């Protein structure tokens, strides 16, 4: 089993979707239980990664490779490093929670919904395992299909606009990546990422490729100014779709930078690091202000995601300045670790925030902030979780939201105090939009009779929110195990930053 652990992780949920589909619309409970079983099974299998992956050694491990398309020298090759392991664990964990979260919320064809979720989970794990660029691309694109279906079928009233926008945006982005990959294939004769990393490229070639990758991954992250699909997609997506989108799919953008931009085009990445850093800071400040004035809770949290993902791109690209200008590899590692922790942590917090909004939406069928007020009076336990996640979203120490931002801000200061200055602005603006939301939704007297009738969270919802809360606190109080898991991989990535191809 351990020889094919990664394949098992990818295909188990995808294969598991078949019996769930077969359960049909007539037996919704069977479909629910089957999909829950599959999700738990996948999570259980993913737990084997922890003992199987040797974090002290680092590097790519648990490799599998088979010829896939021999004419093009494409391989079905998989392997993971510490960062992938962390992201896979995040995926399988969130996979369970979205199924529980959707339990009796999804009433139309739950078997199809659950099956789409399982397929999506498998494909996302595939993205994190693929070490062949074309295989990565296939998973990367295939992921869009179940998400397209999830939003398009179970979404809100403007779901058609949102799905089209989502699809065209991301598809357009990845087309550029495909062109870049074809160019690399023609030069190297392979899609193997490890070989491509050692392929000599001139600065001009690197620059073209850098922008091809940048567009693809910037859309996914999303970075300003290609972020506008995200609020629309979130608003229209069902709760589970939003949770997966925010918790896992956005991370694929950040992950792509690590696997493509850094190793394959290091010089161009270094040359244009300022651009990515600038866009990241714009994400923190500009998007922070945009989030402040949102009237729709989901949009607010979606914009907040964009701002928080700014720390991921900032943490990755600040490393180039630190290593190449100052020779400070330790600070570069700190920033990179911060970016990685931020990816995982944002998975928990955004997943939790969207789950909270789902809880409210299921009771009131509105996402407008003005329709709420004084919810704490009728839902005290919900209020506890909501405040906890809001504080995590503000980056309060002791929650996971603090760890990554803290590391990235510390590292940025070593590169340039002004970068740290603008990044640290999140302390103020992040607290402003999050706590103003809390004030309007949670605090105050009960504003209307609909709020008065709301019931506190049930056992199923408590389970989902409690699981998120536990992780937010564990990572916040003791991040060392997580950073240790990724430490060797981060160190190797930082070494790549110094590599000159020209």
């Amino acid at each position: 089993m351990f020889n094919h652990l990664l394949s098992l992780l990818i295909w188990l949920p995808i294969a598991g979707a078949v019996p769930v589909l077969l359960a049909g619309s007539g037996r919704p409970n069977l479909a629910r239980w089957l999909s829950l079983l599959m999700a738990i099974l996948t999570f259980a299998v993913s737990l084997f990664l922890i003992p199987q992956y040797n974090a002290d050694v680092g590097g790519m491990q648990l490799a599998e490779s088979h010829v896939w398309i021999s004419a093009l020298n494409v391989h079905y090759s998989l392997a993971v490093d510490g960062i992938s392991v962390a992201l896979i664990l995040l995926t399988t964990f969130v996979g369970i929670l979205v199924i529980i979260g959707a339990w009796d919320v999804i009433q139309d064809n739950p078997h199809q919904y659950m099956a789409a979720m399982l397929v999506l989970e498998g494909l996302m794990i595939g993205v994190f395992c693929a070490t062949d660029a074309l295989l990565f691309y296939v998973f990367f694109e295939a992921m869009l299909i179940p998400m397209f279906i999830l939003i398009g079928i179970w979404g809100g009233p403007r779901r058609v606009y949102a799905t089209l926008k989502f699809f065209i945006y991301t598809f357009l982005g990845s087309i550029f990546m495909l062109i870049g990959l074809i160019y690399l294939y023609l030069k190297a004769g392979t899609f193997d990422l490890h070989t491509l990393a050692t392929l000599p490229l001139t600065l001009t070639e690197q620059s073209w490729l850098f922008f091809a990758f940048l567009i693809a991954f910037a859309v996914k992250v999303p970075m300003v100014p290609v972020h506008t699909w995200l609020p629309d997609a979130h608003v229209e997506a069902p709760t589970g779709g939003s949770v997966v989108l925010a918790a896992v799919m956005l991370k694929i953008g950040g992950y792509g930078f690590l696997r493509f931009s850094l190793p394959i085009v290091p010089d161009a990445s270094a040359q244009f690091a300022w651009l990515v850093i600038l866009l990241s800071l714009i994400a923190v400040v500009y998007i922070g202000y945009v989030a402040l004035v949102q009237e729709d809770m989901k949009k607010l949290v979606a914009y907040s995601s964009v701002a928080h993902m700014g720390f991921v791109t900032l943490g990755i690209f600040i490393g180039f300045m630190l290593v190449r200008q100052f020779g400070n590899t330790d600070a570069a590692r700190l920033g990179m670790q911060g970016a990685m922790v931020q990816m995982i942590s944002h998975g928990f917090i955004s997943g939790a925030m969207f789950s909270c909004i789902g809880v409210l939406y299921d009771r009131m069928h509105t996402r407008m902030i003005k329709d709420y007020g004084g919810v704490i009076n009728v839902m005290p336990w919900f209020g506890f979780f909501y405040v906890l996640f809001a504080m995590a979203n503000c980056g309060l120490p002791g929650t996971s939201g603090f760890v990554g931002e803290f590391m990235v801000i510390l590292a940025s200061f070593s590169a340039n105090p002004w970068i740290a200055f603008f990044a640290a602005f999140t302390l103020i603006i992040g607290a402003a939009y999050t706590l103003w939301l809390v004030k309007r939704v949670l605090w105050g007297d009960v504003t209307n009779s609909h709020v008065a009738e709301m019931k506190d969270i049930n056992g199923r919802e408590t389970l989902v929110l409690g699981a998120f809360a536990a992780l937010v606190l564990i990572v916040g109080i003791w991040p060392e195990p997580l950073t240790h898991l990724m430490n060797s991989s981060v160190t190797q990535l930082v070494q790549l930053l110094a590599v000159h191809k020209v």
Partner: protein
Amino acid sequence: MELSSSILLTIALAPLVGCLLAGFLGKQIGRAGAHSVTILGLLISCGLSFYVLYQITAGGAPVYNHNVYTWFEIGKYTASVGFLIDRLTAMMMVVVTFVSLLVHVYTIGYMADDDGYQRFFSYISLFTFSMLMLVMSNNFLQLFFGWEAVGLVSYLLIGFWYKRPTAIFANLKAFLVNRVGDFGFLLGIAAILYFLGTLDYATAFASAPTLVGKTLAITQHVQWDAATVICILLFIGAMGKSAQVPLHVWLPDSMEGPTPISALIHAATMVTAGIFMVARMSPLYELSDTALSFVLVIGATGALFTGLIGIVQNDIKRVVAYSTLSQLGYMTVALGVSAYAGAVFHLMTHAFFKALLFLGAGSVIIAMHHEQDMRYMGGLRKYMPITWITMWVGSLALVAVPFTSGFYSKDAIIEAVGESHRWGSGYAYFCVMAGAFVTALYTFRQMYLTFHGKERFTVVEHHGHGHHDDHDDHGHHKPGELAHAPHESPWVVTLPLVLLAIPSLLVGFFTVGPMLFGGWFGGAVHVNEVNNVLGEMGAHFEGAAGMALHGFSLFGPFGLVLLAFAIQTYIYLFNPSVADKIKSALKPIWVLLDRKYFVDDIYFAIFARGGVALGRMFWKGGDAAVIDGVLIDGSASMIQRIASGVRRLQSGYLYHYAFAMILGLILLLGGYWLIGQ
């Protein structure tokens, strides 16, 4: 005997356990269970803190500095959770746990009728845990954790009565203003990591001298001194937490929280965290005269100008709140003249007498059925003698009457400022002297309005429906109408008052010698010899009694206190109409003070409204109009336009196509012919 880490962990975690039990099992264990379990936690914590203080001062225990666990370890950077216990920490632990314990007991009486009883106990225990983590930390990471955690609890407690619009406005405001401070604080920590490569106090202080001569490039041509940048950034954090001008605006509004909180968090402990922090960082601050002058001027401004606002307040709690702002200014001034021991000494005495004044005010508020307006009080001394006497004790300490604790700490600060030659010390000396007069003005006014003079309330007995002690029942009455005559509060309320009155009166007398002039703090506080104003003063120190007798001099601050006493006694006991005459004669000044120099209004207009306007502009202008409107939907509609244009070419008529073919053929052949030529 060496301190054991299990004792220290118990001190920190006992309140946390109490918090979790009272918070999560509040329904199961009930009200009595909630207060028992949290008070037990505090008793353990407080008892062990006294033990630690004893071991550190008399038991010969060496300074404890060990990590508990590693938070992260990345390359050469490590962050840990750990404890540093020296005399400064041990003193803070005692102050925090002692005041917190008394506040816990007091709460039993004050919150007796509140629905959120268990929640309240859970919060104040959580606060104690956070504050202990802050003061016991041996590194900047944990300091920041404690720093923000106390901010969180403050947020929760200011908004404790979450149905009140004013409370939930105040808690948001408090959190955000504090975040502005934390923004600077975090950058300061980042600067320390950049220059000194560590987050650990001991290592950072040991290598602090290497900062001399280092600079930080602000622009290509502007270089700032490293130590100055670090110290000012850290102090911005202190300005938020310790409510220094111009980040002071949150503290008066924080009075929306229940009174025990005002005593514990917004007077005795949390707001002094900034003072503690600067004292702790004294090895860094001593490297920058510029930063210390900055600290000095900020503190002096607050000491005088926030005190002035206190004179025009009518809410009994707000008077004490502005008094706190002013006293925090005094502590900051002491820091600014390198009299760190003086600042911490005033922090300690202030913790006792200010907690006493707040709890006393709370006792009055209970008696008045949650009426806080002093215009409807008066003559309360005969109804509540214990509260009356203990509040006088606190007031005398606050105005620094010789022999009280407040005298020793405040007089030392004023004298230290007089001795100092640091830039800004002249201005500061004026502010603290004038501040002493102002303090006496608002304090005596408050005491007279509350306890003396004519009763300005009436007892209306006929409302007999039984729940007048509810917090929101004052809506049923006209102001100044009470359902029952005021009466002295129960023992759980008065006992803490008495227990706080004792140190307010005596602790200064017994500790001034060692703490200020005896080098009691040892290595915990570092002062360069040239800056050592306390050392100079110590040369003339002839014991606590001598200092107090000397303090009766009419040409010093005591003369100003007497003058204020005479003025207020005349106005409020003999001729109350004078107050209104002064008010109308000095109308513009009164308005300026009543509106708090318009600072709140300006902030609200610029930052709150301005921020929302900017956000709306970015959203509607940037995201919606430019990106979505022009780029996304614009390109979509452009494609549509092109497509619908191009579609006309495909008319489906054969002769159109035939015509196009012929045209193409002609162009093609013509082209060849042209090239051939």
